[in-house]
Structure formats: C-alpha cells, structure tokens
C-alpha cells in the first residue's frame, strides 16, 4: 500500500466527539498517523505479523493504520471509555480486530526498590512486557500534567519487545535523547513534522495551530531470536 493511499483511508477514522482537555485529547491527524506507520512498516519492518500495542490509543487511528499494514495483533490502552467506544466503532467500520484495555497509564512507576525488586505502581499489563513487539503512541505532551509524556514513553519502552514509535514536541528533544541514553535504548529522530491542531477547545484562540513535533523511534537491543 502506498503512503498516500494509507493516508486517504485514514481520513475516514472518526475522532473525539467531545474531547477532554484534562486528558489532552487531540486526534492524531491522518497525515501523521500514515507517516508514522508507513515508515515503521517499510523502513524498519516493525508492523507486519507483529504484536502491536497502542498507548493512549484514543480513537485508534495508529492501530488501524498498523492493522492495514499487516500487524497480527493489536491492543490499545486508554483511560477514557468514550474514546475507546469511538475506537471500537472505527475498528468495526474498517473490519479490524483490536482489543482494548481500560486502564490508567499516568501513574508514575516507582523505582524498583522493594524487597523483591518489584515496582510499587504496577499496571495490569506487567505481563505484556516483552510480548508486544512494537509500541505506538502519540502521548499527551504534558501541557496539562507535566511530565506525563515521559511517563508514557518509559512505560512503552518497558512493554516493547523491540521498538517504540512516538511523537513529542521538538522542544523536548534534548531531554528525551538524554533519557533514552539513561534507559539504555537507542533513539532516532526519524522526522520533524508539523502537527496541525485544529481548534478543538474553547481556550484556543486561533482556528488552527502548527506545532513542531519529532517523530521518534526507540529500539531495544538485542532483538530476541524468533523461531521463524
């Protein structure tokens, strides 16, 4: 499938009917979603036949794009049942299989300092660690809850067996590169993109706003052997 074709299909993905500002719900545009998944698929082979997790899946556009490019299993995590309901409808419309888990990704994982070395703030998805090949996310940027972008990113890196694809404000690039080094993962700035945010909340003064975002890819090494 060509990039343009993918972007064209994604125009039909329904978005939030009543976005919640507290959760920084901004729909990932078809343009961004197509670029992300097309690159993950064609350049890095991280989608076809893979198990893919979508953190803060919202209306599901990243997972739908992944499924269209041949992912074998999709699961989305979100705290908002209304968003999941829209995502479910989108999947039904596109005839895509995807599971959803209603869960809170915002809790900061505590350092592993308990007797048995287990982190205090755990999620229900601890057992998914290393089982999901590829993690996708367009996390909240942290304009409402400072640092939430890094909490999402760390969780994604923990869960992924191999690669994480994420979007972040370009202004946070240096910080993220430093963190990636700390976490022992490779980080590549795949592209610098424009995130065109249409006016979605009352407090927005402009009809639309372009912000610079980095399309980042993180890779964990070494890639575990597969039996195929």
């Amino acid at each position: 499938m060509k990039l343009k074709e993918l972007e064209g299909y994604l125009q039909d993905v329904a978005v939030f009917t009543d976005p919640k500002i507290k959760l920084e719900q901004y729909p990932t545009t078809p343009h961004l979603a197509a670029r992300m998944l097309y690159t993950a698929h064609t350049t890095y082979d991280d989608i076809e036949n893979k198990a893919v997790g979508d953190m803060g899946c919202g209306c599901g556009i990243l997972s739908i794009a992944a499924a269209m490019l041949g992912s074998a299993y999709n699961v989305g995590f979100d705290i908002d049942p209304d968003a999941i309901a829209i995502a479910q409808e989108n999947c039904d419309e596109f005839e895509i299989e995807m599971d959803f888990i209603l869960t809170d990704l915002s809790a900061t994982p505590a350092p592993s300092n308990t007797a048995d070395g287990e982190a205090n703030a755990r999620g229900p998805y601890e057992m998914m660690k290393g089982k999901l090949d590829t993690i996708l996310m367009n996390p909240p940027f942290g304009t409402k809850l400072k640092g939430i972008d890094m909490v999402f990113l760390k969780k994604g890196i923990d869960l992924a067996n191999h690669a994480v694809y994420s979007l972040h404000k370009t202004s946070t690039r240096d910080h993220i590169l430093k963190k990636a080094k700390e976490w022992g993962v490779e980080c590549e700035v795949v592209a610098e993109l424009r995130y065109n945010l249409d006016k979605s909340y009352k407090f927005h003064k402009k009809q639309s706003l372009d912000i610079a975002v980095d399309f980042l890819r993180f890779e964990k090494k070494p890639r575990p052997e597969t039996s195929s």
Partner: protein
Amino acid sequence: MRLITHNMLQCHVKGCNANNFPLELQEVVLEQEEAEMNEDFLRNMLNKIEYEALVATCLKLDINDLPATMPADAAYNDEFLQILHRVILETHIKSGKMVCPNCQHNYVIRDGIPNMLLAEHEV
C-alpha cells in the same frame, strides 16, 4: 477482548503481588468470530503465551480442545496451531468479570472491554 489478551493481564491492586494470575473468568458471554490465521505470528507467540494458565482458563470455559501441555513440535504442528488460533484469536469475551485468585478483586468486562481501573486507595 480475545483470550490472548486475557492471557497477559494480571491483578494490580496495591499489595496483591502473588497468585494474581490468571484472573478467573466468571459469568462470561463468549463469541466466536472467524479471523485470518497468521502462522508466523503464532509461532512467535508460542514462547510468550502462559500456556498452563491458558489451558486452565479454557477448561473453566468448557473449551477442551487444547492439549494439557504444548506439543514439542508446536511450531510446525498445523493441527495444534489451528486450535491455538481458534482459542486465543477467535474466542472473544463479550461480557462478564475477571476475579483475582488472590485478593478477589473483580474486574468487569463490558462490551468486550475489561475495566482495569482501580479506585484511588487500591492503586
């Protein structure tokens, strides 16, 4: 939610650290939906599936097709892969609840979506 996802979820109530998997399915409504089989994917999942837990969960749901232990030649055993595919990727839990074997916490499944959110004091 398909059984493959159930096989990767555990209780995360504060302090509930042992015997918190697999969550026991109760009062469930199941639905079979056909899906395209992807053998490469299944092979890659073989060592990621908690097989014992899967078999135990299935038995409680009256799904008796899986052998008690995974065949040694599972990766190239077509019959086994087909059963596995049907069980983990075509069996959907539409509603019901998941009960933690340790702390008895109930996680409700509605419209196929498990609610894993906890109240403030449970986190």
